[in-house]
């Protein structure tokens, strides 16, 4: 399973950025939290609108199965659903801590967005 985590940095010890579309990095790891890729998301950070949709496309292109983030808006959520990517929201701490919570089955899967659309 591939897991994408929105992050303030490029490593598994980086702190999670709660914003999905506008996180500076998206860290992709495997089940055992081995780093596969740290995507530089900086071009999306200042996007006028549509940042969440682009970020969803970015991780869909990499065949991610699960996204761990803080908040996910309606457009991003719709896009993620269409790509078949599951969402674990309300995540905090480091990338590693969040992935460990998944292993312990402590991350509920979101069935709806938990943020307003960005204007």
């Amino acid at each position, binding site marked *: 399973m591939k897991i994408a985590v929105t992050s303030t940095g490029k490593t598994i010890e980086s702190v999670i950025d709660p914003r999905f579309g506008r996180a500076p990095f998206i860290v992709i790891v495997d089940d055992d939290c081995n780093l596969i890729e740290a995507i530089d998301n900086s071009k999306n950070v200042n996007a006028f609108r*549509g940042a969440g949709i682009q970020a969803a*496309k970015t991780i869909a292109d990499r065949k991610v199965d699960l996204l761990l983030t803080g908040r996910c808006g309606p*457009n991003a959520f719709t896009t993620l659903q*269409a790509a078949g990517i599951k969402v674990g929201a309300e995540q905090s701490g480091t990338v590693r801590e969040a992935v460990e919570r998944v292993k312990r089955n402590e991350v509920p899967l979101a069935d709806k967005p938990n943020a307003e659309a960005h204007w």
Partner: protein
Amino acid sequence: MIVAVASGKGGTGKTTVATSLVSVLGDRAQILDCDVEEPNCHILLKPTILTTDTVNLPVPSVDLEKCSLCGKCGEVCQFSAIVPIGKTVIAFPELCHGCGACSMLCPEEAIHEVPRNLGVVETGMAGPVEFVQGRIRIGEAMSPPLIRAVKTHIRGDKLAILDAPPGASCPVITTVKGSDFVIMVTEPTPFGLNDLGIAVEAIKGLGIPMGIVINRSDIGDSSVKDFCDNRDLPLLMEIPHHRKIAEGYAQGKPLIESMPEYSDKFRKLIDDVSMIFGKPSKGSSL
């Protein structure tokens, strides 16, 4: 001649200046309220509205039966308004700018355009003055296409006065683009100066000559005048802070009604603008 009235900062007196200009010009002028998110020239001019036209933006609708998931629509869209993902294509109409590229490029002809309502354009008469305004639909965020629809009513045989929205972003640029002159209305305060500076920088990029009107000119400090001197921007007019102007405004009266002596000052303002426009403009060499 097309003259836009802009400001940077809100609440400086754009509408006061724009409505005063058309009031002294009468049937030689038309006013177009391009501040479609909160048009307010109508409060002072009290026009009779004669026509109301709905303005729509064409946005994509995808027929998934025909779609081959080639992805061309998503590649061309700069606004993430159409997104091929997984085994489907999702359209986000509220992000669409209506360029039509996705439907044009779709090899399967699976995309057709459906209208998204942006608001209305209303036309009428305020006494002898031709009146046009746009009103955006509540909840809509994209105003430039509606502003362009307002501007289609500009006629060449009259002096068109455009009341611009505040700020320095797309709606302002959409309004002033194509104008012959921009009157910048400001107040002589650090706030007025800050926002004026941003708007001047933006409009400078369009190469349109500008001049400054200072409203409530006897308050604040001299920083706006210093700015005009440094930038070689003509100071066209000063309107002092006056209780009678404020009282008239509070009652919804145009300035030249509460202060008839200002009629000549606004006539002179138009003459000065025509002069600057007529000769090689100082403003465009900024």
